[in-house]
């Protein structure tokens, strides 16, 4: 039961990164790709009706984590206190950047919110990557099951560690590049003209970086935590993950210059999914690894009791079906390239 919930939470977080990832990525390339006011409005229209729903996956995943693994929620949220607060502030700034810009037709007002939106998107991408890096690298958990990390210490992995060190920053930059490409494919898919053209160009520039950083990150992860290979050795089915990663990278490289935006976007979504599934597969059943392995938090010592988990499965299944139905409905309503004209943004 606990492993089922592990994969449910992992799937929800993946859904969050894939979905909110493209609107974060659109924010990253926003100032670069969208030069005119009309272009900027087009980008905002492409993400406007969906960004809030995408972000709900984060809240819902947090809530699900809370009830399925109370100790993990308590320990990780208090231990990652500072970066989470920074993430909260960035999420707030980003939301008002998107929503308040259109209210006043004034260049100064709009320039301000443009920078707020784009700046917070860039930082969020880095922070989310660094968070994943922390989970893989391990945190200074002790016997009580709690820890506290400062934002940074000396950027090294020795003695007292911080949220940001060379490894987690590396993963953060990988996340930034990945989401930049992901957002570029989405903007290219939803718009045409110069804006679509420039987005494709940015994605093309991202590709070699993404490829290089993916390889570096894999090597670095093995270097700092050799245990991550254990599950792959014991369950060779996991080797599908690197195959999918390489294939999707190849598809992105091929599809983007040919103008097949949809294929490139789907490949990018699958790439993100397989990278996250690969990480989850590698750490399972550990959910938060300790620097000292005897204090690892696993699905077994953090899960709620079985009655709660079984009851939860019943309503969760129902609500997940409903949520997917809403998403299909909304995305169908707003399908196709965005047009300017009447309406918000």
């Amino acid at each position: 039961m606990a492993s089922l919930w592990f994969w449910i939470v992992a799937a929800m977080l993946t859904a969050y990164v894939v979905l909110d990832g493209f609107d974060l990525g659109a924010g990253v390339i926003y100032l670069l790709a969208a030069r005119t006011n009309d272009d900027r409005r087009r980008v905002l229209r492409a993400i406007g009706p969906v960004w809030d729903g995408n972000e709900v996956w984060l809240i819902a995943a947090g809530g699900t984590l809370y009830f399925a693994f109370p100790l993990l929620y308590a320990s990780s949220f208090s231990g990652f206190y500072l970066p989470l607060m920074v993430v909260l502030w960035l999420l707030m700034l980003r939301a008002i950047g998107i929503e308040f810009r259109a209210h006043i037709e004034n260049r100064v007002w709009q320039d301000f919110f443009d920078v707020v939106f784009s700046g917070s998107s860039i930082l969020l991408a880095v922070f989310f990557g660094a968070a994943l890096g922390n989970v893989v690298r391990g945190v200074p958990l002790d016997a009580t099951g709690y820890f506290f990390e400062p934002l940074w210490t000396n950027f090294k992995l020795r003695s007292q560690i911080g949220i940001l060190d060379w490894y987690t920053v590396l993963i953060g930059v990988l996340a930034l590049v990945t989401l930049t490409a992901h957002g570029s494919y989405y903007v290219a898919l939803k718009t045409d003209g110069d804006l679509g053209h420039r987005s494709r160009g940015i994605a093309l520039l991202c590709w070699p970086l993404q490829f290089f950083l993916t390889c570096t990150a894999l090597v670095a992860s093995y270097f700092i935590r050799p245990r991550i290979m254990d599950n792959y050795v014991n369950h060779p089915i996991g080797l599908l993950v690197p195959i999918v990663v390489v294939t999707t990278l190849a598809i992105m490289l091929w599809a983007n210059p040919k103008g097949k935006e949809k294929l490139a976007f789907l490949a990018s979504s699958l790439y993100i999914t397989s990278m996250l599934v690969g990480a989850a597969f590698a750490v399972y059943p550990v959910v938060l690894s300790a620097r000292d392995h005897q204090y690892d938090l696993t699905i077994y010592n953090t899960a709620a009791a079985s009655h709660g988990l079984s009851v939860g499965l019943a309503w969760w299944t129902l609500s997940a079906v409903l949520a997917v139905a809403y998403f299909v409905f909304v995305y169908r309503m707003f399908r196709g390239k965005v047009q300017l004209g009447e309406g918000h943004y």
Partner: protein
Amino acid sequence: MGNALLVHRLHFAFTITFHYLFPQLTMGLALLIVVLKTIALRRNDPVYHEAARFWGKIFAINFVMGVVTGIPMEFQFGTNWSHFSRFAGGVIGQTLAMEGMFAFFLESAFLGLFLFGEKRLSPKAHWWSAFAVFAGSWLSGYFIIATDAFMQYPVGYYKAADGNLQLGSFRAFVFNPWARWQYAHNMSGAAITGAFVMTAVGAFYLLSGKWTAHARIFVKTGVVAGCVFSILQIFPTGDRQGKMVTDLQPVTLAAMEGLFHSQTAAPIVLIGQPDEQEGRIDNPIQVPGVLSMLTYKRWNAHVRGLDAFPKQDWPDNVSLLYFSYHIMVGLGTLFVAIMVVAFLLLWRSILFHTRWMLWILMLSAPFPYIANTAGWMTAELGRQPWLVYGLMRTENGYSTLVSAGNGIFTLLGFMGMYTVLGILFLFLIWREVDHGPVAEHESLDSLHPMTAAR
């Protein structure tokens, strides 16, 4: 240690208080917008359609504020109250997760359709999108109330071997008897905020002689809803909520009422300042016997005062609790008076010309916010010194590894952020009110293409 506890309490209190300024209007307006859209659809009346669209724009700005200030709430259980989360997460995590899964997905999906989809959808489908937003926001309210109800009156749990709480009965937990009346009372309070705000904007337009056709709709809808809900707020919802506190948290009742000594024919204190040292009310204006009557339905019933309970179980801030409760009740009574008079004037068809009453209605808009805030302060200060009533004390629930310094750092961050957000919010709402439901002149159209297109 005590210092960090205070910082974490202030952190949650500040962020939740600021947050709840927005959902109460969201929930109240969502209901009233459904009412406006229903009438618009039935009568096919363009003015009602314009009225619904105007409130949709106010709703959108308010909703964004509710979303951005709400995200930190879901996080803070873990960041600032990790021992509590570990202790109770196996139970209350259920309702918090359900809020995200059932309510937030529903709201966020249909809000976009409601705000941007009027042209793409049929009128009926657009009505349903408004209804879905309403249903999502009211459902969200229930999950939060059920979570709070567990903290006030824990049911449906069992204590596991490791000392933490686990879900025993889903039904008992989700349908906590405490939650029923608290939900009714809270939602009625939200509807009052919506009604007063809608009425106030209508009164402002009538007083300034602008958009009078729309303004009459606002005032009429607001006054009828305000009248119904301010009465429901006192009876039966407030009365039943009070009865529950009497039965299940008698020490809280004593502190709320400022009753320091147990007595028969206990008086109700209308005005006065609690003196905790001396154990009495200074400058009291009180009516004998009424508290006994309200709590036990007998004039000379014996009511237990604070002295009947060990001091360590008293709510730790008796004075603030006493004032919160008295402000809530005082304003609630005033709302009934205002709305009943307004309703009589409306019934006699003279309200729209009765300027003194329109002034009162316009200026009353902030008070439901104060009453709702005071109500929540009564509930949560009244729960002290417990975090989960009778099971975990507040001093044992916070994140001990998060130092007071880090807590103050982020508290100040939130204060700064929320000051900016609050200013932006008021500014943008004022602009919408100033623009009005429809463009007044052709020249305005070119300046505001959005307004014109709608």
